């Protein structure tokens, strides 16, 4: 086993173990932190694949944005140190079933499709290439999805501001 | 209660902080925090229970008594010569002025004529004390706001005053220099020279203070419109001193009810009408300059003569009630002596400026941010032993 493989397995283990812990822990803040580790593990795998740009974006968006958002909502709603109540048996069974179905689906897909080596030339994932691809309007360009997503985000932002402005007069 | 004789073995027997005792607070989403008794913002053992909604203050409730020494009760068993020295420990930053108030009260009761020399030296000492106190306030307040450096700059000049005090009174903080009828000892031969040197230095340095802090945009933003205390409220809360003069209340005892030689010197009563923390800040800064002005007028004209009037060995105040008030660095200090004709006061009450000023804190702080609270406490210039007594 080469050093590179060991690193891969370590990262994969970090991702999986913290993902499992994130759903099994009954302390909500810890769950958020385990989720964070899981996301960092994924970013690590991107680094391992030498997709540095994707890895950095993964950290910026998920760690710097989403997890901080989750933590803030925990701060504003929860009491420190409280454990969540234990879930009912039925719910536990249902979620286990759902998780198993998801896993089965993924495994099925992997089993059905063979991984073929691409014969084409290797495209270096440099920033310039990513930029060209992202804003390209030619074949394989992502300009339209990019713009659609930004409009979606803009709509979400405007919605947030509207909600934030609305709740003010109610308090007083 | 934990007396010295009892040793607390079981930590769990110590009652918790009175979090549930807060009235009107504790609603949903409210956060109750204890600022003090050990907290960097309180400059002493003051305990504030603050109800917060987010960063916004809903209620401030002071809990006092951590340094209460029952000075009033103590004075009931001390003679009229002795009790003056206890008052140096009240507002330790204006020890001279506290002593002055007590000495004045005893002199009023005994109808002692204080020699001119003692009067003039007393006023110079009082004003030096005021400068020293305001300097310490300036440094400590800047530190509350987050600027550390002014503290050391202020202490550099305060040290000069302390040296002058040390030479003449033998002490640096709790001076005990005044006795009924005059002064305990004559001034040090170098006194005049040193005071003049200090004044020359200080006039230069006070402009430096303005450059360092007063003109700073962050500082002005932190102070302006913070801790509004309207003129009516200031009077109603019994505020006095710079805290009230920042709201435009004409309350300088040195002008209204002149004592010692304050009616013979020229100085201005500083009034600001901003009603906010910046106004209170400016009052103190400008007051230091007025104090310098008073000292300048007197330092070359200290009359010759006795420094102490001839008094009887045992002082006995006639039966009756005597009230004197002086202007300390924090405001109006009243001394109320009820005498039954004995060698000790029957009842003595110190109307301390800090106690009344503190009572205005709650109404000032409501609705402002937690960060503003330190600015307000800074500009009220609270000295905790003065409040607790």
């Amino acid at each position, binding site marked *: 086993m080469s050093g590179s493989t060991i690193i891969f397995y370590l990262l994969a283990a970090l991702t999986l173990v913290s993902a499992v812990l994130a759903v099994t822990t009954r302390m909500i803040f810890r769950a958020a932190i385990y989720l964070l580790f899981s996301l960092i593990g994924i970013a690590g795998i991107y680094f391992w694949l030498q997709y540095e740009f994707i890895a950095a974006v993964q950290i910026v968006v998920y760690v710097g944005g989403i997890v901080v958002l989750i933590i803030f909502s925990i701060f504003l709603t929860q009491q420190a140190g409280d454990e969540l109540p234990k879930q009912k048996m039925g719910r536990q069974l249902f979620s286990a079933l759902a998780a198993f179905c998801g896993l089965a689906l993924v495994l099925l897909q992997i089993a059905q499709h063979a991984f073929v080596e691409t014969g084409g030339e290797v495209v270096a994932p440099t920033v310039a290439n990513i930029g060209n691809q992202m804003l390209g309007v030619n074949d394989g360009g992502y300009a339209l999805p990019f713009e659609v997503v930004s409009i979606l985000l803009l709509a979400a932002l405007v919605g947030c501001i509207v909600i934030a402005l609305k709740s003010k007069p109610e308090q007083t | 209660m934990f007396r010295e004789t009892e040793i607390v073995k079981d930590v769990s027997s110590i009652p918790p902080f009175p979090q549930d005792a807060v009235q009107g607070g504790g609603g949903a989403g409210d956060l109750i925090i204890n600022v003090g008794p050990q907290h960097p913002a309180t400059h002493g053992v003051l305990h504030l229970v603050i109800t917060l909604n987010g960063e916004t203050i809903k209620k401030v409730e002071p809990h006092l008594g951590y340094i209460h020494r029952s000075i009033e009760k103590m004075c009931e068993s001390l003679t009229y010569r002795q009790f003056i020295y206890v008052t140096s420990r009240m507002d330790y930053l204006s020890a001279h002025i506290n002593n002055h108030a007590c000495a004045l009260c005893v002199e009023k009761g005994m109808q002692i004529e204080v020699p001119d020399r003692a009067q003039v030296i007393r006023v110079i000492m009082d004003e030096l004390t005021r400068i020293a106190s305001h300097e310490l306030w300036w440094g400590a307040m800047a530190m509350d706001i987050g600027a550390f450096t002014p503290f050391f700059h202020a202490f550099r000049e305060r040290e000069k005053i302390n040296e002058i005090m040390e030479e003449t009174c033998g002490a640096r903080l709790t001076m005990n220099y005044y006795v009924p009828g005059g002064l305990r000892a004559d001034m040090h031969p170098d006194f005049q020279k040193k005071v003049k040197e200090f004044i020359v230095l200080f006039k230069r340095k006070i402009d430096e203070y303005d450059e360092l802090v007063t003109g700073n945009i962050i500082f002005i933003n932190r102070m302006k419109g913070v801790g509004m205390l309207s003129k009516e409220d200031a*009077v109603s809360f*019994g505020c006095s001193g710079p805290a009230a003069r920042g709201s435009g209340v004409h309350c300088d005892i040195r002008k209204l009810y002149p004592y010692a030689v304050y009616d013979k010197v020229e100085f201005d009563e500083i009034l600001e009408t901003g009603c906010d923390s910046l106004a209170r800040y400016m009052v103190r800064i400008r007051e230091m300059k007025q104090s310098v002005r008073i000292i300048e007028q007197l330092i070359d004209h200290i009359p010759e003569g006795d420094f102490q009037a001839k008094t009887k060995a045992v002082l006995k105040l006639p039966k009756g009630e005597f009230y004197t008030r002086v202007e300390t660095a924090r405001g109006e200090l009243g001394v109320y002596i009820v005498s039954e004709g004995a060698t000790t006061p029957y009842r003595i009450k110190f109307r301390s400026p800090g106690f009344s000023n503190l009572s205005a804190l709650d109404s000032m702080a409501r609705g402002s941010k937690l960060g503003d609270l330190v600015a307000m406490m800074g500009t009220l210039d609270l000295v905790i032993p003065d409040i607790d007594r």
Partner: protein
Amino acid sequence: MEKEELKTKIAELLPAATFEESGEWLNILVTPADWLSFAGQLRHDERLLFDYLFCLTCIDFKTNLTMVYHLSSTTFRHNIVIKSVLDRARPEIESVSHIWKTAEFHEREVYEMFGVDFLNHPDLRLLILPDGWEGKNPMRKDFEDPVNMIKL
């Protein structure tokens, strides 16, 4: 306003008051029952306007407790002293904290030190003494604390 003028004015407002002129300021003796309405008049009367309560305290004369209010006017600069004799066994007087806001703290101090009960005080709790203090009032003359008090 001079002492005499003040005296006539106050005699108009409260005929039951008794005066004492030995001290520096005019001393007025009122009964606890009269105090609240009289205080309101002192504060709001256009010729008196006593808006500055600069000292509020209590004296234990062993036979009775005497409340002492030092009042001043920031407009006319006159001072008076109000006294009210309370029953030592059950000292009670109306609170004036809604007339002069500073009275709130001073009354709390007098409450714990002398045990005077201020009626209608918004928040009559211990201020200086530690929580859970029970028993006697430290500033009364008969207070004994063998542990902490040193008798000279």
